[in-house]
């Protein structure tokens, strides 16, 4: 069934709170280490004792299904305002619900950027009736142009959960220092996209033998590492809370480990695509990072869908990111969901807009990594749910009395990624046509059903 036919299966945060029982689900709750098969009841939007389930409430056989805390995406591009052809708050939130996410954090690199209270309020307002909680990240600098700080106090007042100039680093050292000092004063989280523009030098894929052979300009890991190191120093010096997003190289994680050892307060995320895809995909390779490198299909080379910033990593770096996820260095998986229409992607590789959609494939790529033995299932779930939620100050728990905020997953089911199976307005991903494990059967955000794949009776 295509997603268009399932349109009525999305709900919103404005719906009535749900009541149902999942019988015999495997409940994984990283907040308290729970991993057990049991009944899980939701009564009027809260986790309840199953004995309190009202008569006549739906009881679902959840044998073989996972019940996990709702996912929280720290890095989502919703394209509203200015890019509504590619995504809107409403469509992005549906994509989130479809992928098991109950919170998405909207990045401010819209047109115009989210650099003042009014712009923030518009996105938050649209989010109130969406299929996921929409939290807003404001821009660090006015107009997101990197020169003058935005009114960060007013942004905090407007409710932003962090600030970031994502899409670019706050490259100017003086502006960066001011931003760290101001964020420390205000208690604001600073989210950095780590890319020294001079070192990245207009690169369009990861530097290395593949880039040299393909004649594409390389973007060296040093461009990321230089900003990671600078920001760790600034965080140490100012006490600002720092979150480094979409890290792509082993050396960045090493720098974070060293900084934490001396007490620096820093968190970080990696994307599903940097954990699973490699620079060989630009060359037409289609093996996951954990698979032995194999034949390439030259006819798939230079696919603009493989252009992303930071670029797809070398295989060794992807494996190091997976190891960092497994050992806890990486706090969260964040999608960097970046919708683009075909006119931005069906172009020569170096002209393609960077980014791919990720909300609806994040879990599946993670489960593929779990199946390959790269990371334990509870660690994956924690990196998608409780851990990022904690970074933005949200509760996630599946104990009695908690607000029901969860996803129900069929880990044994598979699906084939296709444009008409995605709720996002865009389908820019090199995973189109790929069969992946894991189907989200139900998503409940703030007690409301936001996605119901027929698991509960349909209204």
């Amino acid at each position: 069934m295509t997603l268009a036919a399932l349109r009525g299966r999305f709900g919103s945060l404005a719906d009535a709170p749900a009541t149902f029982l999942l019988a015999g689900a495997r409940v994984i709750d990283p907040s308290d280490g729970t991993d057990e098969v049991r009944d899980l009841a939701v009564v009027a939007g809260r986790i309840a004792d199953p004995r309190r389930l009202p008569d006549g409430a739906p009881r679902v056989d959840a044998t073989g299904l996972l019940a996990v805390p709702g996912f929280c995406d720290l890095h989502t591009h919703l394209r509203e305002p200015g890019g509504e052809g590619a995504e809107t708050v409403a469509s992005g939130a549906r994509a989130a619900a479809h992928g098991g996410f109950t919170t998405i954090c909207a990045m401010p690199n819209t047109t115009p950027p989210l650099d003042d209270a009014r712009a923030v309020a518009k996105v938050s307002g649209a989010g109130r009736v969406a299929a996921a909680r929409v939290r807003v990240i404001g821009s660090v600098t006015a107009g997101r142009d990197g020169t003058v700080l935005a009114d960060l106090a007013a942004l905090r007042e407007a409710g932003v959960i962090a600030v970031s100039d994502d899409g670019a680093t706050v490259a100017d050292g003086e502006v960066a220092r001011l931003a760290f000092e101001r964020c420390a004063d205000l208690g604001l989280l600073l989210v950095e996209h780590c890319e020294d523009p001079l070192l990245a030098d207009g690169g369009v894929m990861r530097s290395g033998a593949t880039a040299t052979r393909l004649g594409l300009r390389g973007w060296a890991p040093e461009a990321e590492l230089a900003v990671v190191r600078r920001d760790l120093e600034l965080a140490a010096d100012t006490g600002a809370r720092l979150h480094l997003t979409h890290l792509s190289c082993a050396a960045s994680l090493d720098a974070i480990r060293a900084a934490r050892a001396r007490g620096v307060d820093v968190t970080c995320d990696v994307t599903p695509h940097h954990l699973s895809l490699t620079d060989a995909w630009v060359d037409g390779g289609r093996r996951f990072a954990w698979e032995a490198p194999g034949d390439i299909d030259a006819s798939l080379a230079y696919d603009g869908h493989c252009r992303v910033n930071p670029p797809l990593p070398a295989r060794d770096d992807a494996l190091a990111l997976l190891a960092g996820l497994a050992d806890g260095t990486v706090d969260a998986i964040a999608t960097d969901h970046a919708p683009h229409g075909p006119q931005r992607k069906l172009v020569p590789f170096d002209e393609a807009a960077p980014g791919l959609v990720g909300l609806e494939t994040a879990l599946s790529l993670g489960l593929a990594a779990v199946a390959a033995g790269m990371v334990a299932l509870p660690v994956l779930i924690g990196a998608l749910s409780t851990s990022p939620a904690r970074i933005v100050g949200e509760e996630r728990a599946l104990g009695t009395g908690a607000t029901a905020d969860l996803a129900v997953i069929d880990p044994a089911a598979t699906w084939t990624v296709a444009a008409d199976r995605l709720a996002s307005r865009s389908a820019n991903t090199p995973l189109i046509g790929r069969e992946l494990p894991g189907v989200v059967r139900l998503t409940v955000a703030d007690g409301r059903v936001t996605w119901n794949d027929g698991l509960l009776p349909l209204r």
Partner: protein
Amino acid sequence: MTALHIATAPRQHLLDVEGMPRAAVERILDLAVEMREARAARRHRDLLEREIVATAFYEASTRTRVGFELAAKALGATTVDLGVAGSSVGKGESLVDTLRTLERSGVTVVVLRHASAGAPWLAARATGLRIVNAGDGAHAHPTQALLDALTLREALGEVSGRTIVIVGDVAHSRVARSNLHLLRTLGARLRVAGPPPFVAGFHAWPGVEVASTLDEALDGADAVMTLRVQLERDAGNGISSMADYASAWCITSDRLRAARPGAPLLHPGPTNEGVELSAEAANGPRSLIGRQVENGVPVRMAVLARICGVSA
């Protein structure tokens, strides 16, 4: 998208020489020799009469564009040049939209030159056209490599086992990349040389030795290929000045003495005389630059005939 022309065989392209089997290379070179004779004898003039060949050059070119146009005409194809500057491209039409327009107009083969590496792969995926790569960014220039291989084969008798040296801005050169692939397939020993920014990344290129001085590069060379220094590259090319480059790397008849006696000199053109090679070397007895241009048309005749699936 359905192909608008009837193709009985699977669609053929010439996107790259990387990975082309040696036998296929030899067949194209043999066919080029036959085409050279056929052209002189005015034979095969209706071989491609059912084809419409468009040249779409998003970067300037004389040799390659004219070479393809004459090759297509010599085999009886209808030819059309997408004058990029005077077309809808100037109005912001995308590459794919332009190519689809050509396809709907009846064009069957597009010869594409583009500043972006990989543009021909996009063209092949997004249309039903047969695509010939006439140079994509810093990536590949298959017909230049084929005509260089033919030129070398005729000058040296045999490419296999010979030491062939490429001097200049290898890092930014599609000619160098395609020659490295093709000459390796033909069994040559390969060496590249230039100032460090010009050979960046090539220490890891399979089967290629990097020399750090011109004398070291030329020592024992059976043939020398020098590349155009891109004077027009606006972001700077990593070398301090043209004069510095020339003093270390300009190939003169005098410096050519470091190579094997009689080793020929090649250059894909257009040359900057006094920068990458001297005027007397370019015009001297060891220069094959004229032969390279002469081989351009028959090699392109062979390529067009092959991708159109016709046998001469």
